[in-house]
């Protein structure tokens, strides 16, 4: 049953071990429609591992993931994507030698719809048109959309990665450090994109960040991970930055 009160994402007892190293241990939480949840924690707390387990990039050792109340076992990232989960990974996951269009459509290239598509022929012109239209709406400038990604600055690449997450209209967006290594202006445009996305099409979002100000400015709820365990679940309006920080570092 899917109703408006069914959480868009529910994670139960999610656990990931690498040999004897415990990256995640019994993490459970629900994500409701319309929420932007910040995922916070020190380095090695398990934030990226959690996102990767939900997005099909890693197979959890134990635990379950439910999407709209339905149990999901993603065996590779394409399955999670097809189910409506878009992920912007921390290492950006862009192909340096490809241009913006090819990166936007990576793994989901458009083929011709007519006879030309019989051989898997790519509709490059169509992809380019759609990519340029999508990027025209983003408050960021690119020197040359047809140049390889490796010619772009870190900020521009980040915007391309974010644009890809937005472009596919996923229902659940997972953003791993979307503002890391960005300047003030670039961070602002990424944060604006996050706000616009939740207002327009995404149903929920998880945002990982080290930057408390950024998290505070866009998130409604804050989950705190420490050494692989979920140690706190704050509603932003009912807590303070000081309380969140002490929860992250484990001070009482």
């Amino acid at each position: 049953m899917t109703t408006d009160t069914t959480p868009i994402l529910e994670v139960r007892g999610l656990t990931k071990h690498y040999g004897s190293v415990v990256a995640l241990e019994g993490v459970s939480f629900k994500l409701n429609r319309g929420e932007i949840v910040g995922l916070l924690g020190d380095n090695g707390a398990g934030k990226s591992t959690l996102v990767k387990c939900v997005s099909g990039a890693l197979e959890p050792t134990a635990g379950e993931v439910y999407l709209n109340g339905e149990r999901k076992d993603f065996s590779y990232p394409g399955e999670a994507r097809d189910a409506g989960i878009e992920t912007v990974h921390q290492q950006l996951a862009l192909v340096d030698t490809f241009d913006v269009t090819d990166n936007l459509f990576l793994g989901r290239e458009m083929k011709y719809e007519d006879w030309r598509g019989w051989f898997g022929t790519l509709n490059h012109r169509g992809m380019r048109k759609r990519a340029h239209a999508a990027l025209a709406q983003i408050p960021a400038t690119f020197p040359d959309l047809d140049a390889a990604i490796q010619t772009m600055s870190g900020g521009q690449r980040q915007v391309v990665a974010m644009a890809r997450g937005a472009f596919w209209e996923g229902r659940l967006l997972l953003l791993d450090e979307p503002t890391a290594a960005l300047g003030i202006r670039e961070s602002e445009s990424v944060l604006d994109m996050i706000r616009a996305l939740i207002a327009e099409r995404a149903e929920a979002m998880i945002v990982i960040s080290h930057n408390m100000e950024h998290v505070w400015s866009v998130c409604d709820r804050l989950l705190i991970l420490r050494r692989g365990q979920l140690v706190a679940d704050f509603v932003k309006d009912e807590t303070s930055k000081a309380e969140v920080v002490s929860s992250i570092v484990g001070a009482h």
Partner: protein
Amino acid sequence: MLTNIRFTATQARVGVLAAMVIFFSIRSPVFFTSRNLTNVLINASVVGILAIGLTLLLVAQQVDVSVGSALAFSGAVFAVIATDGGSLFLAVLGALAAALAVSALNVVAIVRLRVNSVIVTLAGFVGLRGVAKLVLNGRSVQFEGFEWLGRGRVPIGSFIDVPVPVIALFIVFAFYFFLMKYTRFGKHIYAIGANPEASRLAGIRLEREVSIAFFLLGLLVALAALISVSQIGATSPTTGMGIEFLALTGVVLGGGSLRGGSGTAVGTVVAVVILAVLDNGLVLLGVSSFWVEVARGALLLGAVIFDELGRERGIRMGL
């Protein structure tokens, strides 16, 4: 921007080829005759077919050094069936099955078990040569009635008879050119080679795409084996010896890199023709074949350094 770079890598290679053709035409009266140029292309065809298949593998960050031994194995299976009273059709099927079995082994070891492709195919390079000897009992085998593929000619228009191996090379080239440049599969192979992790996260099925590249190469190995044995009308355990490195020289000379993500069908074909012209031209000028090998090596080194300088300059200039 682009102002400092005058040539693309492929243009530079076409230029080198043109310069060589002009040089040899001036120095040798025999070089620029249709008979000799046809010979050059025939000599390039078997190496070219293998090199094109290897280009796709190198783009995907894989390599196969066993194609020469696999060719010998495939040819040996053909010869044994053909001379043992089997039909030519069965013999061709046997050659195909042998080459695809090698691909299947490579796929299991490299894609499933994740052993490095250099190591796996090095084992094939050594081991399959032995298998070919076992199949042939160490002897050379002759057969008749299978001349067309290696020695036949197809009249095109009323003036030129194009050798069948050259037509085969052209068909393989056209197929790979289209596959690599215009299809989703080709795009995925370039993505996998340039950034395997990004490709995986983007939902590309690396295992499937790389496996297809290995099986396609298997088909080409069988084709190359059939052309080789048909050209000679015989096969022996030493058939195709050293051809893997000549083909790989062609791939790298054509712009392929062991780092993956680069290389094109056009570049490889131009490079293989450069190597064939070099061979032929130097022999016509009476240069010793020892020097031919030295020249090949020098050319390869020169091309790699040219590309590396171009790449570094590109990065420094923010290209």
